């Protein structure tokens, strides 16, 4: 793919390519540094679940209280949109939020990002935010959209589900077909929005870190933490909105 010389120069300078760098191979399976980051996020989430399920009590600790506030916030938001289907939708929303948030933030914390690994050819980062790999964001988009559509068929039935896209009335058919196209573009919008935002953030940080060692990148890190939280929220809320929309019969909303 063609890249302007300046951009290519910058990429070389900060060792960040659009594709995740491979660390090692297990058979034909390539372990990339975004995959290690995914595993790190998994570990954090499992640790969180373990801690909560082990020590959750009626009188919450500060930590438990914070987690409860986040979860209750998302739960109430989901409930206000989805009503009695909240219990089905909420786990997806919450998990998307937590997973993406941690994936975004683990790519920003200096100690984690400074770890390096020699893969036989060059030194690469051991961890690179999972959201800066299109494989991850596409996977999340696929899960979100497929789950939305299966949930739709399960709740309102195949007839009403197909009725959303196909109709005998010409105007409805036209609108339905447009909907169908928009469903396909969702794969792209979901995956590239997240990928683009986080990747660019890390790119900017990389450039800043290569020019200034201290101080200047700090406000940018703060900003990127904010962007990471926003992107995680956007992904979760969009999933929630689509799931609520698709589990409602046509004409009911």
């Amino acid at each position, binding site marked *: 793919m063609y890249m302007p010389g300046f951009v290519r120069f910058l990429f070389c300078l900060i060792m960040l390519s659009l594709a995740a760098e491979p660390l090692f191979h297990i058979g034909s*399976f390539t372990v*990339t540094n975004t995959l290690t980051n*995914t595993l790190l996020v998994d570990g954090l989430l499992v640790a969180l679940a373990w801690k*909560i399920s082990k020590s959750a009590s009626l009188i919450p600790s500060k930590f438990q209280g914070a987690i409860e506030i986040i979860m209750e916030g998302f739960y109430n938001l989901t409930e206000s949109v989805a009503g009695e289907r909240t219990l089905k939708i909420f*786990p997806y929303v919450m998990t998307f939020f937590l997973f993406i948030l941690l994936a975004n933030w683990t790519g920003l914390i200096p100690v984690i990002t400074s770890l390096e690994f020699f893969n036989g050819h060059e030194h690469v980062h051991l961890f690179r935010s999972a959201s800066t790999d299109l*494989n991850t964001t596409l*996977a999340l988009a696929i899960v979100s959209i497929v789950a939305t559509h299966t949930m739709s068929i399960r709740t309102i039935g195949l007839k009403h589900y197909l009725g959303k896209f196909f109709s005998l009335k010409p105007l409805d058919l036209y609108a339905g077909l447009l909907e169908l196209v928009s469903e396909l573009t969702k794969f792209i919008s979901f995956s590239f929005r997240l990928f683009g935002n986080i990747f660019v953030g890390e790119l900017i940080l990389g450039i800043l870190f290569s020019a200034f060692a201290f101080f200047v990148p700090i406000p940018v890190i703060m900003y990127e933490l904010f962007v990471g939280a926003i992107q995680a929220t956007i992904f979760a809320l969009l999933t929630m909105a689509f799931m609520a929309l698709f589990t409602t019969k046509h004409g009911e909303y």
Partner: protein
Amino acid sequence: MEIFKTFGLDITLTIAQIVNFLVILFILKKFLYKPLFKILKKREDLVKESVEKAEQSKKALAKAETQEKEIIKKAQTNATEIVKDAKEQGAEIIKKAQEEAKKQAATILKAAESQIEQEKTRAERELNKHVAQLAIELLKKSVGQIFTGKEQDEVVSRAVKELGKKPN
């Protein structure tokens, strides 16, 4: 496709990420959301319950207070009644006792009087006997010197007869 390669798109990696996410979703569902929502539900129930309990105990307290007042009032009226009754009964008992005492005194007096009367009659009778004997003795002594034995006996028996005729 060149663009896929640039973005590092790899079907196995994408599938790996999908599987990874589904696993994490399952784990969090089972071990994070469920226990946490259980606790939230429990807490909500507890709060509801304690608020209800507090209200109930408030009501119970108010009820107990009114009951207490009622009981005290009742006890007071009861007490005054009992005291009144006791006074009345006491007065009655005293009256009865006095009457009884009067009666008894009267009977005792009567008995004493009759006894005195009896004593008196007995004493009189005794005295009479005594006096008669004394008289006979005196008669025998004084007559003995004048009359003989036969006449003597006759005089005495006649005297005895006369004495016997006379009532006390």
